[in-house]
């Protein structure tokens, strides 16, 4: 697959972030002074690691033998037939070890932590997938691990809480604020400020202060690189459209990044439309947000006119966040990526359709992307290709989804 590796023109056409850690007007480093040193240290360590063949080799080796990469690019024929339009392919990140794309970044960052000589890692988690991925990588590499999780999310994702504890991580319930992902990040930042000398914060998405959005993107970009090679091998051309769900936006950037320079590829990011487009009832930052700074980066933020951060809602804990990665904000402004949303109801319908037609139970996050595939594919030609990122598997969501789909049954 190596022969396709260099055909991406992203780096020439999309030279972000700049030296200030910005993507256009977005991004930057907005943290209390205590953490500035750690961000500088991380940037240096990452720069060194990126140029260190031994580090890259070690990472590639773990990705192959431990994570199971490359993940398949699967032609979803029954969904394709059902929708009656474009050929639908799933990039199967749900088949990566731990069941989601999150392991790509968690493993990379835990290797960095080891390289920096930090024996302890902390992480925030929403749906629990990033927490599980970090707990996994920490177990693999012998690091102490503590995961902050909103109390409401712990309730939604009990199975993942147990998985993390099984692998030796300590899971800390966060009772502050809305008791979800945003509050877990606040608590992780507080922990990091107190323990910065011996702790690395494994931030789970392409958000937060520079260099996190860049590091996480680079570790996730393997998804798009593999997709390019696999699709070229299967059909000999690029896709017409790529679709991925966007919470913080790491699985979407992971799939899209390699193709940003390919103008013929339409890209669609799908946010959580929740119950309705009213404040507090959704997490669609591009539809309902405005310019703001939350948790280290300037981006689109769901907030009120006083700059106070708004509450969010989504059936999927992983998309339930008030801001979005700064690189996405920039791509929204330049219109390189199109953003839309899927409601809770549409996601739950897609969740069931995919399970029934393909025998693949998607994560509720990924189900938002499937909902967009359902809207788009029928209007496209039969020789068009859509690649959708199946960012995670839905085992973790079965109990939660059952409350909506079959409330009378005791799951």
């Amino acid at each position, binding site marked *: 697959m190596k022969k396709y590796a260099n055909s991406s023109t992203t780096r020439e056409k999309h030279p972000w972030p700049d030296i200030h850690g910005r993507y256009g007007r977005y991004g930057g480093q*907005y943290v*209390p002074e205590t953490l500035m040193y750690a961000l500088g240290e991380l940037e240096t360590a990452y720069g060194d690691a990126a140029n260190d063949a031994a580090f890259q080799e070690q990472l590639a080796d773990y990705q192959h033998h431990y994570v199971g990469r490359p993940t398949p690019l699967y032609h979803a024929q029954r969904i394709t037939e059902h929708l009656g339009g474009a050929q639908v392919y799933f990039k199967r990140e749900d088949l990566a070890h731990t069941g989601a794309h999150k392991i790509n970044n968690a493993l990379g960052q835990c290797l960095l932590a080891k390289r920096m000589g930090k024996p302890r890692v902390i992480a925030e988690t929403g749906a629990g997938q990033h927490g599980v991925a970090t707990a996994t990588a920490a177990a693999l590499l012998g690091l102490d691990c503590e995961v902050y999780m909103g109390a409401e999310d712990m309730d939604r994702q009990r199975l993942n809480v147990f998985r993390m504890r099984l692998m030796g991580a300590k899971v800390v319930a966060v009772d502050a604020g809305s008791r979800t992902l945003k509050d877990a990040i*606040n608590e992780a930042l507080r922990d990091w400020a107190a323990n910065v000398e011996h702790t690395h914060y494994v931030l789970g998405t392409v958000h937060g202060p520079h260099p996190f959005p860049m590091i996480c993107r680079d570790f996730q970009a393997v998804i798009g690189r593999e997709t390019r090679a696999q699709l070229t091998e299967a059909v000999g051309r690029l896709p017409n459209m790529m679709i991925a769900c966007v919470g913080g936006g790491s699985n979407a950037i992971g799939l899209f990044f390699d193709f940003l320079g390919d103008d013929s590829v339409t890209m669609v990011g799908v946010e959580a439309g929740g119950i309705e487009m009213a404040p507090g009832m959704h997490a669609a930052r591009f539809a309902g947000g405005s310019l703001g700074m939350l948790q280290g980066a300037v981006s689109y933020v769901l907030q009120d006119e006083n700059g106070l951060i708004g509450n969010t809602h989504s059936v999927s804990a992983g998309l339930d966040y008030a801001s979005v990665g700064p690189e996405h904000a920039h791509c929204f402004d330049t219109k390189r990526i199109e953003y839309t949303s899927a409601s809770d109801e549409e996601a739950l319908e897609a969740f069931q359709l995919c399970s029934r037609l393909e025998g693949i139970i998607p994560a509720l996050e990924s189900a938002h992307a499937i909902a967009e595939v359902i809207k788009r594919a029928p209007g496209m030609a039969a020789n068009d290709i859509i690649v959708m990122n199946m960012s995670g598997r839905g085992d973790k969501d079965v109990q939660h989804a059952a409350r909506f789909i079959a409330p009378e049954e005791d799951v």
Partner: protein
Amino acid sequence: MNRIAQRFETLQENKQAAFIPFITGGDPTLPVSEDIAVALGDVGADVIEYGVPFTDPVGDGPVIQEASLRALQHGVTLRSILGSVERIRKRSDVPLLLFTYYNPIFVYGEAAFARDAAAAGVDGVLCVDLPPDNAQEYRDAMRTHGVSTVFLAAPTSTDERLARIGAACDTFVYYISRLGVTGERAALTRNLHAAVDRVRTCTGKPVAVGFGISTPEQARQVAAIAEGVVVGSAIVRVIAEANGAPDTSQRAAAFAATLANAINPDISHQVSS
């Protein structure tokens, strides 16, 4: 001349340390916070840090987080804090430093905020999550309107960063004496004296020390080695424990007086009834 700069000049002439209490604006209510601010000024506060409540206070420990939440619950915003400052200003000349997170100012608009803050009688602003590296426009706006900017220095700040921080601070540097968030601690950081000396040398500015100072004895020790002593959570806790009682401001002032006495024992600090 800016009230904060003036106060620091006078203190330095008299070889005294500044007593800088923190309260959260709107906890328990804005009118009571205003009474507390005036009372703190009367018992010897040199600068009052007036906290602007925020939904996501990443730099704060539980005590100030909870105070912030109480204030938000009855609708306190950056705008209403400016109104509150205006009312304090009619009753007191005590220097006022807003202690805030960046997003409310960013959304308000830096230039508009600087103008309105100056008009309300704000003397300075400290933005917890705005390091000087990202603050050029913000500083320009504040300077245009004569509002003093204070930035944080931390134990993890390198000498090079301290120099940059010093250059961005108009009157004094706020040194976080410990890693972590705001909150009371049983003991002071070891080697604080040497740390403060390093910050003073590298920034070239007077140094106020905060984070973790909660007792008169700790305040006295810090006053001996730094130009200012910040006490936050301990005062906020006294206010929280008063639980809205009619004498809340007297209780806060009585506690603050013990701190003021410890910091500058030669001056009388009395709670007016």
